[in-house]
């Protein structure tokens, strides 16, 4: 099995894990699935690094491991664990079954889009590229379909992972500073969202996005 | 020469700034003083211009790169109109000093600083519009006069007044899109905003520019289909109606059209047709609207609409080659300014003394107050064009010019005849009201009327004189 095939296979695993993140009932559980997904992502980076011989990608894998597998999930578990809104329930606008179906549609569409890209470098990893794009839109879908504001944070994280994967696939030799910048930014984004979510939970007593209706028009 | 024109524009603006800084009681004197300075400046300009042999002068003022953005031009037409608007501005400032008083029966109001400041800004902007030599300059002053008009119509701050003010602003602003179009097309075709460049445009672009200017002109001069703001604008204090909505601002429209015609070096006939037809339609409409009016000010508003239509008629007829119609139209701008101001100030004087402007209850004015009574009669005769009052001569020139060009264009004959009929009709209608209100025994309302302050009386007398002589001034000046 060539390195690229492993990459494509792992990419498929990413879709599964992101569905788990979306479907999980408790935010802390989602955080764990997110850590798992990030681990898969790190796996993709390492495999890619070996296959194309990119030292930069090893460095990426290392930073991603530190930030996305350890740092962000730990913070999320700690901060989100304190927040609870029993009234909200699952907070899904659509059922898990529909979510899965939607995800399938997104993946198919993304395959169609990616098949049009003509760059020679991506020929072998088109499935993975399609997955990365799909991942991005799955994250967006999560934000739209989840009422729980913490789940919306995960939606953003999925989008970010998707673009991260695209970057690795398309430009494996990008300077690591780029990657560090993106990763740091993601960490800060999650921290700030978590702080705001905590303030909202304290002030409103709810995590339901539909309850945030003071401002209209 | 141009410096004097600039002084005429900037002195009132300076006065407005001073008013904003000064305490309220000083505002009236500052306003009168600066309006007087502006008048002296423009009179001196007129004297110098005439003494120097009436040589037209033009100078760029603001340029961007090589392009003249705003420039000013002194010529026979601009000087004549400038003298009228600044002089009337000064007279209105004097009159307002008496009108804004606790003795006013209709609106006891002491005249807040806002009134005096905007009045001055308006005088300056109006002078600017008259002297500017570029389309952008016209657009700028067009909008400034619109903003001043908005502030002054809404002066009493009643909901109805504010709504009318907004209506006036929005309608004229929509019409101003015509000037936007005209300025853009001119600029893009010739690389300049200067009015004199209109002559260099190819026929198609020239037609577009002229029609676009005509649209903007209709808006400001309250012609169909943009007429509705003017009757509502009568919510303004009467001196404002007199000045903005009879003498000056509504003349912005006809004036910019006149200037465009002067600079166009031959206008496509289609413009003349559009202008003539719309003028006659407006004439007929305005006349029909006379009939139900009982409020003197609203009657005057519709009369203003029709008189402006005469000016448009004269200007549009000049497209077909009648210089006489053009001169008649310019003279009518000048004559109508004085006569209609007089009429509005008469309305204001009636409000001040009797507390109402409703014609049915106003009878026997002459017996109670000879000045108002005579003014009423003179204004009505001057407006309707009875010889020897001023309106006769300018209207005569318009009709004479019209009949001359109608020889070549038979269809025009019908339009000119319709206009002539309107003239007769409006004469009859005004005569009816003069007969009702002026002679006889004072009605109950009139008998209880208060005396008129000296400043207002003085202004009325000056205007009565002008309503008789203005035509001679204009004819002598235009040659």
């Amino acid at each position, binding site marked *: 099995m060539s390195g690229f095939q492993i990459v494509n296979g792992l990419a498929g695993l990413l879709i599964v894990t992101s569905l788990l993140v979306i479907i999980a009932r408790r935010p802390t559980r989602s955080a764990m699935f997110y850590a798992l997904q990030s681990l898969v992502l790190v796996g993709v980076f390492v495999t890619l690094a070996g296959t194309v011989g990119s030292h930069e990608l090893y460095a990426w894998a290392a930073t991603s491991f530190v930030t996305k597998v350890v740092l962000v999930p730990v913070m999320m578990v700690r901060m989100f664990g304190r927040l609870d809104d029993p009234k909200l329930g699952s907070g899904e606008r659509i059922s898990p079954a529909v979510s899965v179906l939607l995800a399938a549609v997104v993946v198919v569409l993304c395959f169609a889009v990616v098949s049009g890209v*003509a760059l020679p*470098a991506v020929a072998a990893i088109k499935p993975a590229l399609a997955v990365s794009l799909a991942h*991005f839109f799955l*994250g967006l879908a999560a*934000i739209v379909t989840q009422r729980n504001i913490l789940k*919306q944070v995960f939606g*953003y994280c999925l989008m970010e992972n998707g*673009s991260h994967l*695209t*970057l690795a696939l*398309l*430009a494996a030799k*990008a*300077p690591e500073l780029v990657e560090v*910048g*993106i990763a*740091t930014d993601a960490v*800060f*984004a999650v921290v*700030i969202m978590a702080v*705001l*979510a905590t303030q*909202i939970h304290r*002030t409103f007593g709810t995590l339901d996005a539909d309850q*945030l*209706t*003071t*401002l209209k*028009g | 020469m*141009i410096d004097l024109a600039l002084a005429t524009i900037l002195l009132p603006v300076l006065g407005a700034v001073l008013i*904003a800084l000064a305490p309220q009681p000083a505002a009236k004197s500052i306003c009168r003083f600066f309006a007087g300075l502006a008048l002296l400046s423009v009179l001196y300009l007129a004297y110098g211009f005439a003494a120097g042999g009436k040589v*037209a002068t033009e*100078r*760029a003022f603001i*340029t*961007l790169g*090589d*392009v*003249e953005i705003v420039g000013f031009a002194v010529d026979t037409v601009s000087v004549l109109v400038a003298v009228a608007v600044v002089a009337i501005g000064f007279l209105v400032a004097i009159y307002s000093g008496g009108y804004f008083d606790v003795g006013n029966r209709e609106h006891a109001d002491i005249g807040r600083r806002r009134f005096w400041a905007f009045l001055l800004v308006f005088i300056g902007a109006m002078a600017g519009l008259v002297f500017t030599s570029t389309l*952008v300059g016209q*657009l700028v002053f067009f*909008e*400034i006069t619109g*903003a001043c008009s*908005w502030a002054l119509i809404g002066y009493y*701050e009643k909901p109805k007044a*504010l709504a009318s*003010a*907004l209506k006036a602003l*929005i309608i004229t602003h929509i019409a101003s*899109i015509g000037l*936007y179009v005209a*300025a*853009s097309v001119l600029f*893009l075709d010739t*690389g*300049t905003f*200067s009015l*004199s460049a209109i002559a*260099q445009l190819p026929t198609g672009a020239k037609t577009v520019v002229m029609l676009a200017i005509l649209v903007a002109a209709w808006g400001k001069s309250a012609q169909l289909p943009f007429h509705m703001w003017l009757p509502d604008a009568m919510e303004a204090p009467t001196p404002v109606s007199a000045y903005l909505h009879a003498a000056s601002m509504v003349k912005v429209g006809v004036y910019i059209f006149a200037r465009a015609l002067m600079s166009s070096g031959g206008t496509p006939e289609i413009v003349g047709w559009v202008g003539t037809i719309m003028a006659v339609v407006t004439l007929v409409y305005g006349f029909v609207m006379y009939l139900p009016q009982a409020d003197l000010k609203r009657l005057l508003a519709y009369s203003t609409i029709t008189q402006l239509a005469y000016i448009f008629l004269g200007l549009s007829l000049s497209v077909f080659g009648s210089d006489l119609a053009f001169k008649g139209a310019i003279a009518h701008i000048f004559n109508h300014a004085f006569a209609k101001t007089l009429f509005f100030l008469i309305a204001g004087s009636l409000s001040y003394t009797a507390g109402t402007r409703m014609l049915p209850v106003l009878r026997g004015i002459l017996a109670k107050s000879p000045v108002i009574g005579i003014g009423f009669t003179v204004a009505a005769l001057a407006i309707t064009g009875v010889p020897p009052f001023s309106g006769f001569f300018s209207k005569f020139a318009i009709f004479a010019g019209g009949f001359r060009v109608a020889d070549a264009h038979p269809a025009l004959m019908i339009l000119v005849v319709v206009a002539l009929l309107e003239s007769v009709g409006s004469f009859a209608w005004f005569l009816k009201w003069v007969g009702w209100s002026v002679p006889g025994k004072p009605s109950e309302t009139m008998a209880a009327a208060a005396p008129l302050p000296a400043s207002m009386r003085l202004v009325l007398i000056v205007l009565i004189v002008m309503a008789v002589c203005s035509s001679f001034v204009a004819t002598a000046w235009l040659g």
Partner: protein
Amino acid sequence: MVSSILPLLLLAVPLAAAVAVAVAPSGPTSSKFVEIVHVASISAVGVLALLVVGRTMAGDDVTALGNWLYVDPLAAIFVSLIGIVGFLTGLYALGYVRHEVAHGELTPAKHKIFYGFFNLFVFTMLLAVTSNNIVMMWVAVEATTLGSAFLVGLYGKRSSLEAAWKYVIICTVGVAFGLYGTILTFSNGAEVLAAPGGAIYWTTLAANAKLLDPTLVKIAFVFVLIGFGTKAGLFPMHAWLPDAHSEAPSPVSALLSGVLLKCALFVIIRYHVITMQAVGPEFSQSLLLTLGFLSVAVSAFLVYVQHDLKRKLAYHSVEHLGLIVLGLGIGGPLGIGAALLHAINHSFCKALLFCGSGNVLIKYGTRDLKSVKGLLRVAPVSGLLMMAGALALAGFPPFNIFVSEFLIFSAGVQEGHWGLMIVTALLFTITVAALIHIVSGSVLGKAPDTMVKGDVGPSMLVPMAGLLVLVLVMGVAVPQPVSRLIQQATAVVIGGDRTVPLAAPWQHPAPVAEIVAPARAEPRS
């Protein structure tokens, strides 16, 4: 290109100030210290920004940190906006925040948070417009959201937290699209360039745009437009904007509307340049034209129905950003120059009005236009400033918005978009009515009897007067350096030679006007 320490200094000052404020001990004694640091920082930023701009205009593009920071005339416009508007709103903030703390609207701890984040926010905006590294550009734009989110939610009320949440979610999600577009552009460049590392630099990408894969360039531009368009508040991604602008403290609203939106716009322009070079102007121009027009059309009506002063102003920002984008979409030297001029003009004017809304809040305690009456009588100077600002925004001469609106209109006519321009002009008439409503309903009129007369202090009025002066100066005669800067920036966007004057209509060699008088060389007024 010359390397210079100036951009680094420019970035270091607000960052250092933010850190200094953050580490300062909290307590009444330190609030003086915090304010001093803040004033020193914004003054230094103002001066340094103008120095950088001056350097750029002398003909040298300034770089720093290798190639990472880069200021060309295009960036210089935005740097100077941040410097000037940041300085004036920062000054205004002193009086405003003091008042809020004194009246218990903000806790003393929030005082420190405000100034810390204010400077951080300025830093992130400066970083966004000075970076040449496209990934750093994205990071900086994302950081502006994060830096200003706490400012939006500063009051800690339900509504402000809600606004902050919407702001963060919508903008980070939006900007994630921007990240995707950035990555696509970068990988596209890395694939085709001889030195793949160069693909990270905008300058390299723009110079080699012809080599890029056209399909990817188009996809990337769509992503960028959605992403940074969200941040710029374009319809239909504008949902966060009215909330955030209305809930933030007024000086921050001024900064958000006056400057932040333009920073996002700046990034869009950068990618617009690459796209135009790579696939010709039609693609990106038609997208910009559509989005710009839709923004104008929708917000014109939304402006009208609002009764909340700050929300009304916020929708005006959507509308004017739409107009700027429309100008870019019209294209040509005149369209782009006019759009850039409008960006500057709108900044000054909107900052003035948002500061004015702060005065209204201080005097009346509400933004509801139905309750705010007679500002001119209660606080005459604020009333006058608001009135002038509203007339300026409505596009009346002699104020600045008139000039750039007129130029955009001309540009549209020149490119043959007759109908579109006339419809746009009519749409703007609706907003004229909306603004006049503000003036006639709230600035004029009779004040409630309970109102205490007296204006806010000079510390807040003077910066506003400064903004009004800028509005007037730009309206009466655009100063020579500014018009030159815009001309150079337009050349950057079009990709022409900056030293040769563009064939913009105002540069026709000989005006056809026949000037009768010999005295032509009147000094500009």
